[in-house]
């Protein structure tokens, strides 16, 4: 196993005065044998497994200092981290993923001791998540299209236009304003209804579901639309087709678009706080 023989870049050499007495953590998996995954890690580091019983941590050896977040290479490193998680998922099934830049001070023995000490909780989490992956489901709406649709459906629209045409200027203004508010309200209710329908579908198919806040990114193709629901769900691999069909139905509704992405390692559903603090 090529744990020590890692070629360092110039930048690494400058920052490695403390030697490779740190272990960068990618994931914990169900596996009982040490295995070398090759130089697929962050900065092409050699990724390998530290086993303890039937658990193993996927790591690379590094200096016990974090990667610079402002460095130009950070996005490349994030992609490399993600790639290692993908490889681990293919090889071992479910993984407990670590976030970027989590480093243990110590040797393989430190990692092994930590695995051993927390074996039951780590195993519980892995079995809880087994066979499931994380997906993101976002609902976007085109409010203009929705307004037009709602106005056409509203039976009062034609009568209302006639009334406005025949009314005095002041009265016409007030009626028009009232009518606009009515349409706006109807649009809000339609959005709410569809968002609820989608949320209920996702909840019923998922093992777990979370309603996310508004901070995550909006892809370019949806920039002109408004995001009205943002869900993260943990779904059994066998139920993805069912979820896709349910979302397809909503995606075909006038004025709405669904964005369905995944599978991801279960970043949002690992519950290990109690053993980390």
């Amino acid at each position, binding site marked *: 196993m090529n744990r020590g023989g890692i070629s360092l870049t110039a930048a690494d050499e400058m920052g490695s005065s403390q030697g490779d007495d*740190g272990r960068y*953590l990618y994931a*914990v998996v169900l596996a009982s044998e040490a295995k070398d995954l090759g130089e697929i890690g962050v900065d092409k580091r050699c990724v390998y497994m530290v086993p303890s019983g039937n658990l193993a941590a996927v790591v690379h050896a590094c200096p*016990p200092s*974090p990667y610079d*977040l*402002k460095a130009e290479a950070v*996005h490349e490193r*994030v*992609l490399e*981290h*993600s790639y290692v998680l993908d490889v681990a998922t293919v090889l071992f099934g479910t993984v*407990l*993923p*670590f*976030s*970027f*830049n*989590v480093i*243990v*001070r*110590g040797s393989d023995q430190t990692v092994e*001791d*930590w695995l051993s*000490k927390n074996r039951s909780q780590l195993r519980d989490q892995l079995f809880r998540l087994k066979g499931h992956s994380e*997906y993101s489901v976002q609902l976007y709406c085109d409010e203009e299209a929705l307004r037009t649709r709602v106005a056409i459906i509203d039976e009062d629209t034609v009568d209302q236009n006639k009334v406005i045409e025949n009314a005095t200027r002041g009265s016409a203004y007030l009626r028009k304003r009232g009518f606009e*508010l009515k349409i706006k309200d109807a649009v809000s*209710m339609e959005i*709410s*209804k569809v*968002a*609820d*329908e989608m949320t209920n579908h996702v909840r019923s198919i998922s093992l777990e579901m979370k*309603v996310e*806040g*508004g*901070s*995550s*990114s909006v*892809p*370019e193709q949806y*920039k002109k639309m408004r995001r009205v629901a943002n869900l993260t769900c943990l779904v059994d691999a066998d139920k*993805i087709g069912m979820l*896709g069909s349910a979302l*397809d139905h909503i*995606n075909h509704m006038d004025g709405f678009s*669904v964005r*369905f*992405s*995944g*599978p*991801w390692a279960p*970043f*949002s559903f*690992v519950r*290990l*706080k109690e*053993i*980390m*603090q």
Partner: protein
Amino acid sequence: MRPERDTPLVDLLDRLLVRGAVLSADLIITVGGVPLIGLSLRALIASMETMLDYGLMEDWDKSTREWYSSRSIQKPIPEGEVLFQSFGYLWSGSEIHGWRPGVLYLTENRIVIWRRNPPDMLMDLPVSSILCLEKEIDISPRMLSDDASEGPQIINIKHRDGTVRIRLREYDEFYRVLGRLSFPRIAAPT
């Protein structure tokens, strides 16, 4: 439809940096005497907006930066960690009768409803001033539709200086988080 993986890099960053997964809680964590460095990007990077603050996306997404610049002055000043947030409405009974939309934030100390555009703090209520919550039955026609049971709930929050009326879809979660703040005097809504 099938899930897609060819998502923008920011999606990946959102997961790997912002959400974090395991061991992202503190700068230094000691487990059984073994010091671990769990470099908390949660602390450094709480959101995409913070990532932009840190210049992390400097060369990546011009439009995102412009969007952020145009909105940065409109952010409410957070007071403590946001424990719950959701789109909601506040009833305005003074100048204009109607529901005013905004984002409800619940922190350890306050409940606020912030309207982003035009920027306005619609409500700012100390949690300590809350006396009780009451769920209201909405009998307007639209609430009697098929999905009425799943629709937004109207809640009256009675506090020391009066009552505010809000409408919220994720009411149960709101109540659960509020209850967790150990305010036993907030009775379960009826």
